[in-house]
């Protein structure tokens, strides 16, 4: 079942009178339960595509449907409510709130849902336990390492049990060992919890954690390759083919 359906998607940024096309006439489908890596050189539009899927940006043209909802039809407020329910976003630089503890950071998205205090506590404890940081629940971001901060950010992204998790260079600011641990965690989310993940990365090593690789160049999709663990890549499509 297609979770993300993108048709003829275009995005143009305006800088004064100048128009900068970032995505051009792009089609893409992401099935539920997939782990997709978006790769491409800088300026290829992969982060813009990720932001459009996450509903934090709006397309200039085309259709983007996530979990059956046409995002371009939602008002700002309804889009925010939709994000709270359906999207978990993992940033490259973690973006934890500095004045909140790990527990409070993870609890933030739950404040938007109709949950009691005890339900929120239970959920936060479960996800902090899942990322191995239950013992650091009262630590502030400044008291955590980069890898720990990213694990808290991942816990925050999954705590509301979103329909889709998007990650923008989640290992871009981590050392190799911590990056591997983070990627392993993302794979677990996909394989054990059945979460749909879309991840932007420059790093082929990080991309190898995904089941499908989508390549963008100059705002257009140039390749989509299915990958299986332990198997050779199988090219299933090429843009324009």
């Amino acid at each position, binding site marked *: 079942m297609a979770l993300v359906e993108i048709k003829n998607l275009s995005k143009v940024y305006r800088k004064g009178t100048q128009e900068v096309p970032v995505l051009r006439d792009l089609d893409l489908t992401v099935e539920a339960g997939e782990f997709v890596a978006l790769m491409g050189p800088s300026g290829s539009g992969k982060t813009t595509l990720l932001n459009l899927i996450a509903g*934090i940006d709006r397309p200039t043209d085309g259709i983007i449907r996530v979990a059956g909802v046409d995002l371009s039809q939602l008002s*700002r407020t309804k889009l*925010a409510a939709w994000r*709270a329910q359906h999207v978990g*976003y993992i940033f490259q630089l973690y*973006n934890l*709130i500095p*004045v*909140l503890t790990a527990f*409070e950071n993870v609890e933030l998205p739950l404040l938007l849902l109709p949950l009691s205090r005890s339900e929120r506590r239970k959920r936060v404890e479960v996800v902090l336990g899942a990322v191995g940081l239950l013992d650091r629940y009262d630590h502030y971001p400044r008291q955590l390492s980069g890898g720990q901060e990213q694990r808290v950010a991942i816990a925050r992204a999954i705590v509301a049990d979103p329909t889709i998790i998007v990650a923008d260079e989640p290992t871009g600011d981590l050392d190799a060992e911590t990056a591997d641990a983070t990627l392993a965690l993302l794979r677990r989310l996909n394989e054990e919890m059945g979460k749909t993940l879309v991840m932007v990365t420059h790093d082929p090593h990080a991309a190898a954690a995904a089941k499908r690789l989508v390549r963008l160049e100059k705002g257009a999709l140039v390749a989509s390759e299915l990958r299986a663990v332990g198997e050779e890549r199988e090219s299933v499509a090429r843009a324009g083919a």
Partner: protein
Amino acid sequence: MLKFLPYVRKNILGHRVRSAMTVAGTAVLLFLFLFVTSVQNGLDRILDARDDKLIVFQAYRFCPSSSQLPVFYADTIQAVPGVKAVLPVKVVVNNCRASLDTVVFHGVDPKLLPAVRPNVRFLSGDWSAFQSRTDAALVGRRIAERRGLQPGQSFTIAGITVQVAGVFASDAIGEENVIYTHLTLIGNPGSHHDFHATLFEVQLDDPQHATDVAAAIDAKIREKYEVPTETKPQKAHYAGALADLLDLIGMTRWLGFVCVGVVVVLVANSVVMSAQDRVKEHAVLQTLGFSGPRVFSLMLAESCLISLAGGLLGTAACVGFLEWRPMSLSTEGVSIDFVASGTLVVAGLVLSLVVGFVAGAVPAWQAGRAEIVSSLR
């Protein structure tokens, strides 16, 4: 909204120095505003008081010491139709000009006083203690607190030596700033051993006829003794005595408004700085699903809480100060109490909330309207 309060609180406490400076600045300015307002309140209480008495004063005289009316005029005044009771009062002040520490003696007939002052409530002493000694004094609560006067204590002010027979409270305007003593003690007997009063306090059968009765009193005294008097309702008498201060107090009201303006700028500056520091944080919140109005309300709550904290401190400081040191501004024997009323407290708190709202609205609106993607960059 309550479940978001810990986030708001932590953001305020997370920037301790900035928040503390803003709260302190707000508190100081609110203190100033409320202090000025307390003077205005005191003045309003005088000018809005129930106008059911007349004051007979010698015409063309200003300072109490310049009005000299023989006490026996009381009989003439009492005979005027519509007059219910007359109390001759000799007023002696230690300072006839505007002062923050004026002591006002009212020399009265100790037997007449209980009937015309039913509102007096004794904190210590009683009427009999006052009536039993010719040098006895009943001291108003505010002046007793200001001067530290206790029952049994003798003191001399403005050349008058009295012994405190009691301390009283009263809800009558300005009365707690008065020291009652015997008219015979301070009434300056004239050549025929007639005592003089400064004024006559006239109670009326029907306050609605005050103007007619006042005119009748002045006409009667002029006719009988060829002495010009000026009889006015008590409120008008007070307004005349305080005329020089009215403009000054009116100007301090503007000073108060300037204080409020400065608080708005101060809090707004703090909220703007906070919003600018946290552009990315607000974008992250919106990414997590916080709507623009939600971010707006969180920022506004921060602004209002900071302002309210300052307002609480400033109001408490002002009320505490005025309770600790009751102050009155007096001129020509009429006192304006600096009133720390419940209304003042409510006004301080409401004002601080309004200030927080006004100061925070624009930066909060900007935070709520910011584009997520550009803010994340």
